[in-house]
């Protein structure tokens, strides 16, 4: 399906070529970029081209790729490493997986280009073990490339050699943080360490190392072939090219999209995403996964780029985009993300290990109707302090979902703690299911489905729900044919 709003660079081949055939990749111009680098360009030229293209890291932080490569090239070392970060772990996001499963050679080619540029000849793909198909296809692709002299010793007859191996992650979210990833690759516990030194100076086995995300790499062969001007001509002033998003939640067209930087949220949600199902009202969209923030209708016209999202207290992240409608409680959404980060923090630093638990507990307290106004202040100040003191990016961004929802949906938080109500009708402890006397015909259906038998009433008479016994499962509401049961 052709969609004029989309532009596919990183995912240009996914779905179009046979991922298990190197010939299929070559047929669409594959490995020409590597050939061009080896034949026509010096390593410094490749780095300059990357810098000029304006490509920035797609893993979340948006660090300029060419600059990172430049750092690693600067340090003299007998060995340098190119690491592909394929430890995709955001809830509901699978951009990297799609690229690796659909176009593995693209990533291998980009890694070899990176190796050539920084003067390294070892590559490692750190991939989570939960991606068996991606692993199988990568293994096959590496073998095919080696057989054709596109990887291994003396690539394409030149004196450049580059080899790639796979390392499997056990699915720890924190291992997407580059220093934790390196610790894990070395066989240590996946824990981040303090930077500097940055990996470009002393990374894998203390050697200069560049760590690039899958999507970042997937752009590179196209940039080499079409040039820096082409790429920097797409996007906004500070954010060039396209971004792959995994759009999910309350949206009609769930799935992967790739749009130019600068596309508005409105275009993404309503044109590409097809709008909100069931005629419900759009409420918010969470970008940046558990590290990002909620954007509302006020932000719909904003062009998506790194700076704009940060200015709106969210972030680009790796591309997760979760759409929420009027039925979503923002306190519960924040709690959902904290539940995730609380489980995924490595536990190394205090603010993240204990702070995430305390944030979660405060949110939980609010959703069960025991929160106070003082708790809102505590949430805010604890969040601020965690951001200020945590060791790595995971901890520093972990309070974002709390802070952003508190800022944009403060009324909703206050409704929870002052009125003890959940406006979206999600927090079960704050809900009351009641029978509307005028509408109830006494059909007894509700009483019969109630799993705890807390609805009483004679046939053809108005029924009554015993609030003390009600477990708020909503079965009666779903069953009633006369709209005689309401929750509020």
């Amino acid at each position: 399906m052709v969609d004029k709003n989309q532009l596919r660079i990183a995912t240009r081949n996914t779905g179009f070529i046979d991922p298990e055939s190197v010939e299929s990749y070559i047929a669409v111009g594959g490995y020409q970029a590597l050939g061009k680098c080896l034949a026509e360009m010096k390593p410094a030229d490749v780095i300059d081209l990357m810098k000029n293209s304006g490509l920035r890291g797609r893993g979340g932080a948006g660090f300029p790729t060419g600059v990172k490569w430049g750092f690693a090239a600067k340090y003299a070392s007998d060995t340098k490493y190119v690491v592909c970060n394929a430890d995709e772990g955001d809830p509901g996001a699978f951009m990297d997986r799609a690229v690796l499963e659909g176009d593995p050679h693209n990533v291998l080619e980009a890694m070899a280009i990176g190796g050539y540029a920084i003067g390294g000849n070892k590559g490692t793909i750190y991939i989570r073990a939960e991606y068996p198909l991606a692993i199988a296809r990568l293994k096959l692709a590496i073998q095919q490339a080696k057989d054709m002299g596109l990887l291994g010793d003396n690539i394409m007859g030149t004196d450049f050699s580059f080899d790639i191996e796979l390392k499997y992650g056990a699915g720890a979210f924190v291992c997407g943080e580059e220093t934790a990833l390196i610790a894990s690759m070395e066989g240590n516990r996946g824990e981040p360490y303090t930077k500097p030194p940055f990996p470009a100076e002393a990374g894998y086995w203390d050697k200069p190392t560049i760590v690039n995300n899958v999507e970042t790499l997937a752009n590179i062969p196209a940039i080499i072939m079409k040039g820096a001007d082409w790429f920097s001509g797409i996007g906004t002033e500070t954010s060039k090219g396209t971004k792959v998003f995994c759009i999910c939640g309350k949206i009609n067209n769930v799935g992967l999209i790739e749009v130019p930087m600068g596309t508005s949220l409105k275009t993404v949600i309503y044109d590409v995403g097809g709008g909100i199902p069931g005629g419900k009202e759009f409420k918010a969209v969470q970008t940046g996964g558990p590290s990002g923030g909620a954007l509302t209708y006020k932000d719909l016209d904003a062009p998506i780029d790194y700076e704009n999202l940060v200015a709106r207290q969210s972030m680009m992240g790796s591309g997760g985009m979760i759409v929420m409608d009027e039925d979503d409680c923002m306190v519960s959404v924040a709690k959902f993300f904290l539940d995730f980060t609380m489980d995924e923090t490595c536990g190394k630093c205090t603010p993240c290990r204990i702070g995430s638990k305390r944030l979660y507990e405060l949110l939980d307290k609010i959703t069960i109707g025991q929160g106070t106004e003082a708790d809102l202040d505590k949430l805010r100040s604890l969040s601020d302090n965690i951001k200020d003191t945590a060791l790595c990016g995971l901890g520093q961004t972990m309070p974002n979902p709390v802070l952003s929802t508190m800022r944009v949906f403060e009324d909703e938080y206050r409704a929870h703690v002052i009125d003890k109500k959940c406006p979206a009708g999600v927090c079960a402890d704050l809900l009351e299911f009641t029978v509307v006397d005028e509408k109830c015909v006494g059909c007894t259906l509700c009483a019969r489905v109630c799993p705890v038998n807390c609805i009483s009433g004679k046939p053809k008479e108005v029924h009554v729900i015993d609030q003390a016994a009600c477990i708020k499962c909503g079965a009666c509401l779903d069953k009633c044919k006369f709209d005689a049961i309401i929750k509020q």
Partner: protein
Amino acid sequence: MSMMNITIDGKTTQVPAGSTILDAAKKLNVHIPTLCFLQMDELKFNNMVASCRICVVEVENRRNLAPACATPVMDGMVVKTNTIRVLNARRTVLELFLSDHPKDCLVCAKSGNCELQDLAEYFGMREVGITGAMSTYRQDVSPSIIRDMDKCIMCRRCETMCNNVQTCGVLSGVNRGFDAVVAPAFEMNLYDTTCTNCGQCTQVCPVGALVENDHTWKVIDAIADPDKVTVVQAAPAVRAALGEACGMEAGQSFTGKMVAALRRLGFDHVFDTDFAADLTIMEEGSEFLDRLQKFLDGDKNVRMPIMTSCCPGWVKFFEHQFPDLLDVPSTAKSPQQMFGAIAKSYYAEILGIPREKMVVVSVMPCLAKKYECSRPEFAVNGNPDVDIVISTRELGRLIKRMNIDFAKLPDEDFDNPLGASTGAAPIFGNSGGVMEAALRTAYELATGETLPAVEFEAVRTLTGVKTAEIQVGPHTLNVGVASGLGNARKLLEMVQSGEKQFHVIEIMACPGGCIGGGGQPYHHGDMELLAKRNKVLYNEDAGKEFRKSHENPYIIELYEKFLGKPLSEKAHHLLHTHYFKRHQL
């Protein structure tokens, strides 16, 4: 080296490149509180994981706060350590710690010695504003060490000590998130791991998460039991540090007061492990000469070097880590166990009591000794040669508990016959001391001549690995001395690979030897303190009438009346042991 300019709280200084903000702050006399950080350069021990975040400071043009302990100084850096932002952040971090801490200081072994407690006081914490669920973990009690992970603050010092310094690799971070904790692999109990019980983890733990298994009440019960005869022995290193545990200045000899205190505690017989140290030299020295002669005669069944076996941490270390070298260490028991064996045989005979009636208590600078006395081979029909072991720290507690004013005690002498010792014995507490003591005796036994100078300076430093060539009669001996198990591993790997042929190796598991033992008053990384203790023992040696173990008249009497001669059958039975291959994980 290039210098970096840095301004902290308005004061400017220059520090060499590679220095941290904390280094610069120290230079400027600006106090930055720390918790996980611990730097013991002499031990090559640096805990700079920057995990606690108490030391955060504000750095101009930096988005978030920076940990002072691990952030390198950049030229022109401007740092503030006392802004409201910094204070709030530190306070929050401390409150988070306290929200997940039992706060049972009243019954905590580390109360008064706890860095978290000190911080709470420093910040004037009078209530903890942050509350929530607490992490819970089962208590793990080994004969030597109690792990109470509910108190753990994840500073990882123990992990650095256990892995990087001691190379035992027992402790590491396990689990994620709130459940993250420092534990052995597969969360086994310490007893089932390769833990050597050296207790260095307890020396660096800032809180009460890792403490010794306290046996002071057992001692009180034994003393109070009218049916028991209590015999106490005190190891050399104890006398160099006991005063510190009783509020006195370090660097003095506390021998006389220690004896007086033990007597006032009510022990029936106050003896000295030093006596057993002299005995150890007689056995070990003879074994060495015997083995050396066979080796030089070309006997393929003997291997060189001979290694000392006084240190139970070291013994368990090689049983786990170097099972192919089990025939290399001396078979001589440690002085503690020799003492127990002699006390419950020779001395029980003198007293005319059965061994079961006697309770032998050891005061040791060591936690591994608690484990050692529980090894089944050191018991007769289930009755252990040594019944109870308490550390120097525990003796300090006992003295206070029994209302003994340690500082005002008179100097008293040990009882005889198991209380007499030569100068070769007290130096057992220093790294290199056992070697020196053995050389003094071996020299005279081998050559029949009087040793011209008894002090072997080459093995007297506090260095982790010491090697020297020493002339004993016609033989040039290559000797190696290591303190700290990481250093021991280095020497052993040299032996294993055949890189260097040693004749004698002395190993002590703790940095600096027993003076830095896991049961000593906390040294908090202060190497100057260890140097003071070291000096006390050498001074004690210098002040003795006899300086060589074979000159000890009571040792001579013991052999004449009871053992026969060194390495006799009876001596073998009572004073020698064997080693076991243990699992490597």
